[in-house]
């Protein structure tokens, strides 16, 4: 009897250690584990990097910054390099989860326009931790034949009963509240109970008119003309415009959110050197161009931008003009209490009839 137990234990131990070894073995190799938004990096660029350096890249993807936080915090995978949005980077910096970058290993970061390093100071005050990758705003992507174009300069059009069942809202707490808060004239970083409640009332009022709440799929729905307008990121709008020339994009006058997606190296990094090599590679003109072509968001890479066609450089959907950017706010991380409050308000909206 005892012996049987011993055999069982041995067997269990063997299999478990096998499982664990399977998880851990990657660290010793010449690898790089990257965590990025979906469809946010040209697969050919990764292949090129692998060929040039012999480093094997493992790419993991996520949908929203909150998803990213969960994946990172779960700790199942040791990420070496992560790309995410401004406020989430600030939150992680505050939590001490971000390593300082060694710019001497990333000489090509000089290709980036210093304006965007200045913008990044709102979440990374000394530019110690992050390198901007893409940036943009949030606005309304609309169908020119289905929507009265004189009205798209205001977020209020999303509350117009005429478009009932043709409106796609953002399925993300911060972006949806941003729209409501901007209509009310408040900061999108407010934590004031009454202001948030007012915004929630507004969003509840809007729900019956909404076709669906989407993030990544919004552009596809707009391209196939399933809805008249959608709240999307400027980059997505630029992409959708390429596929359907009846679409147009507007950043309402009430102001909007300017976002910067940046790379940072988290504390979990096992391959910091490889991560910096990859960052340097991403700043290279040709690679940055590949990624621009693939993602079609505004790139902070000055060299890449200069080599684009003139009309593309002047495309205000992709490259928001400075006056638009100055009218925008960057998201700030909220403290735990405010986050919980906001999540609850959002859940009430989602559960409403």
């Amino acid at each position, binding site marked *: 009897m005892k*012996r*049987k137990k011993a*055999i*069982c234990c041995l*067997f*269990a131990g063997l*299999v*478990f250690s096998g*499982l664990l070894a399977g998880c851990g073995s990657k660290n010793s190799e010449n690898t790089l584990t990257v965590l990025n938004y979906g469809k946010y990096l040209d697969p050919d660029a990764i292949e090129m990097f692998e060929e040039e350096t012999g480093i094997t890249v493992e790419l993991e993807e996520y949908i*929203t910054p*909150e*998803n990213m*936080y*969960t994946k990172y*915090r779960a700790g199942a995978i040791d990420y070496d390099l992560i790309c995410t949005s401004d406020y989430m980077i600030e939150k992680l910096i505050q939590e001490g989860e971000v390593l300082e970058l060694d710019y001497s290993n990333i000489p090509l970061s000089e290709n980036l326009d210093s304006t965007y390093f200045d913008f990044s100071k709102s979440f990374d005050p000394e530019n110690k931790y992050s390198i901007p990758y893409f940036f943009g705003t949030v606005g309304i992507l609309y169908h020119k034949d289905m929507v009265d174009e004189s009205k798209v300069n205001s977020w209020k059009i999303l509350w117009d009963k005429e478009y009932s*069942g043709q409106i796609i809202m953002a*399925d993300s*707490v911060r972006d949806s509240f941003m729209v409501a808060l901007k209509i009310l004239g408040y900061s999108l970083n407010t934590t004031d109970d009454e202001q948030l409640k007012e915004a929630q009332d507004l969003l509840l009022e809007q*729900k019956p008119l*909404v*076709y*669906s*709440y*989407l993030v990544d799929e919004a552009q596809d*729905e707009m391209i*196939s*003309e*399933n*809805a008249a307008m959608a709240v999307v990121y400027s980059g997505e709008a630029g992409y959708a415009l390429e596929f359907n020339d009846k679409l147009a994009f507007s950043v309402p006058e009430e102001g909007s959110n300017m976002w910067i997606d940046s790379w940072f190296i988290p504390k979990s990094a096992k391959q910091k050197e490889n991560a910096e090599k990859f960052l340097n590679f991403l700043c290279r003109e040709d690679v940055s161009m590949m990624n621009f072509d693939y993602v079609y968001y505004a790139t902070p890479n000055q060299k890449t931008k200069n080599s684009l066609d003139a009309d593309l450089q002047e495309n205000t959907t992709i490259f928001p003009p400075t006056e638009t950017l100055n009218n925008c706010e960057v998201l700030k991380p909220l403290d735990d209490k405010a*986050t*919980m409050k906001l*999540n*609850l308000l959002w*859940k*009430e909206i*989602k*559960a409403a009839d």
Partner: protein
Amino acid sequence: MRNVKRQLLAGPYLLWMAGFILLPVVMILYYAFTTTSGHFTLLNISSIFASIHLKSLFLSLKLAVICTGVCLALSYPLAMILNNMKEKSQGFIVFIFILPMWMNFMLRILAWKLLLSNNGVINTILEGLGLPVLDVLNTPAAVVFCMVYDFLPFMILPIYNAMSRIQQDIIEAAGDLGAGSVTIFFKIIVPLTMPGVVSGIIMVFVPALTSFAISDLLGGGKVLLIGNVIEQAFMQEYNWNLGSGLSLVLMIFVIASMALMSSKGEEGGAGVW
């Protein structure tokens, strides 16, 4: 010694159970009864009584009941028809029912999304025929529809299985003794297929109750089932404690419904499949 060897064969499964069933349940229990800082609390469990959570739980129960009802109403006659066919064609039709399951169910849901959307295939055809267009996508109706579509084979197969086991002699004997077809149906066929029905109900009701992917994709973010609340707690809010607490409550509902159904079927559903 030979006995030991034979028992060793169960080792991998035991390991599987320990690692992927027991351990997760223990972790859920731990998270469910603690706060983020690790102190004991009942708040995560009692938060099911928060009005939004209750609302989504009732919506889940409602949709699951409707889905199970529709599946049963479709499957029972189908199984009967199937059972009366020639043996060769029976095999072929069962094969057709299983055929869609060869494809990943997420892909099938996405396909339905394309079919049902405003400018989708179905509406284009309806418009072409001059009929009013469908406006079901992003409503609970679309969610129920897709649940029925997805889970129907799980209802048909056990019922068909139970039905094909009824010996023809019994039915003939009943006929010889003067029972009409209605009597035969209610006194013989229904009781004898009960285990299959119970098994089918469990296999449809449980996944329908706990599903979140279908409502996420076809509900357009507007249909918030309890599964979506749990998913959001884990993925968006980073509140594993709340997610675990709600999961535990949902588990109780699942176990309760299974116990209730098993007590109705004589041998319990599990024996059939």
